[in-house]
């Protein structure tokens, strides 16, 4: 009798490569915007084009990685009771520095992001990572965590920005705000008659994020249902196997008795 393929236990977690997991979890599973709703203000304000979203993302990558490293470095030097304010000082310093660097080396981006550069200070994502991860982990892990989370944030901003830009202008441009040596449109539908300016404006921002969130929730729900169904199937099978074993045992014991 050929051995029956045994279903894997879906409840048993797959063994994961620790560092890789820290890096990639921010993309979908723990995406700061779509899952945790952190940093909604910049997600609405600077995503009228994909490139400004990307630019904001890059700044957040710099700030979050930097602040995570410093927070992790000083986590044992700072007394417990003043940890949170000390972290705020670290973050504010990083934001000020990154703001100055942007103004010096990416002036167009600095102009288009406006007050949202200083407002990175109050982005809950950064403080959240500092308190919940960097203050408890090694420097290298904290750096990877900050980088990965900010990458997920950037990905979300770019997705929102791309959606809004394509609806608003029918094309996606690159090289306008960032100091790139070229200026191209990645996608150009040439459908100028169908441009909807409202997507570049505030109303479009809210609606696009709302729709994308619903999409992500739907995918999450679908996955969960699938997982649930798998789990149910596995339980059914286990039950069946157990019943089989029981029956066999009973038959064996009956055979012994006879």
């Amino acid at each position, binding site marked *: 009798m050929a051995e029956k393929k045994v279903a894997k236990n879906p409840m048993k977690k797959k063994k994961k490569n620790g560092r890789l997991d820290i890096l990639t979890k921010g993309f979908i599973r723990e995406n700061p915007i779509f899952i945790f*709703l952190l940093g909604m203000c910049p997600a609405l304000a600077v995503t009228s084009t994909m490139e400004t979203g990307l630019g904001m993302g890059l700044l957040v990558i710099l700030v979050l990685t930097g602040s995570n490293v410093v927070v992790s470095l000083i986590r044992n030097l700072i007394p417990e009771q003043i940890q949170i304010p000390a972290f705020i000082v670290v973050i504010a310093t990083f934001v*000020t520095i990154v703001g100055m660097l942007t103004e010096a080396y990416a002036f167009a981006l600095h102009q288009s992001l406006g007050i949202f550069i*200083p407002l990175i200070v109050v982005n809950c994502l950064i403080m959240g990572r500092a308190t919940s991860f960097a203050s408890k982990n090694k420097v290298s892990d904290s750096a990877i965590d900050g980088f990965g989370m900010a990458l997920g944030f950037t990905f979300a901003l770019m997705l929102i920005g791309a959606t809004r830009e394509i609806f608003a202008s029918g094309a996606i441009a690159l090289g306008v705000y960032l100091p790139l040596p070229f200026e191209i449109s990645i996608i150009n539908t040439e459908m100028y008659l169908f441009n909807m300016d409202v997507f570049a404006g505030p109303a479009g921002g809210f609606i696009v994020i709302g729709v994308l969130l*619903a999409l992500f*929730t739907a995918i999450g729900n679908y996955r969960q249902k699938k997982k649930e169904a798998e789990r149910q199937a596995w339980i059914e099978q286990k039950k069946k196997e157990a019943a089989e074993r029981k029956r066999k045992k009973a038959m064996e014991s009956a055979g012994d008795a006879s």
Partner: protein
Amino acid sequence: MISPTVFFVAIVSSMLINNIVLMRFLGVCPFLGVSRKTESALGMSAAVTFVMLVASVLTYILYYLVLDPFGIEYISTIAFILVIASLVQLVEMFIKRFSQKLYKMLGIYLPLIVTNCAILGIVEINIRENYAVQYGFGAGLAVAVTSALGAALGFALVMFAFSSIRERLDAATVPESWKGVPISLVVAGIMALAFLGLGGIV
């Protein structure tokens, strides 16, 4: 002497036309987070109004008496956020000590305000507007505080309206994946469209 219309325009434009939440995208986190009940929306608005007014006065004075004369405007970001943060700490402390009633009303919302980009945003905008250059130090301060008041009123207005809508939304039948934040965001988008029409006032 500046005419009273300046104040009127400052209030109307920062409350309705450049509404802090729907047009400037500041304070979206509390807008989504604390707007589930009308009561908490109003509590949050009261706390924001108070802190915003005091913070605009303090940062304006700090900027024009210390940072600007010494040519060290570049530290304004860190200076402002720390001033706001310490302001919130002090206010919370005083409320805890002297008024239990007030603490019950505002206590939960005060710590939330530090990470509320509305305060830091309005403070930054006020400085960028160069009111002191336009109207002189004293009158500029008055205009800055007036527009901060307008912004706070605009925040309260939108919070109140939005929380009322959300209370209804909770009772409505919404598709599974749209429940909660997604449908609220779309509603906020429609509200923003409505506010777009107010641009014609001025």
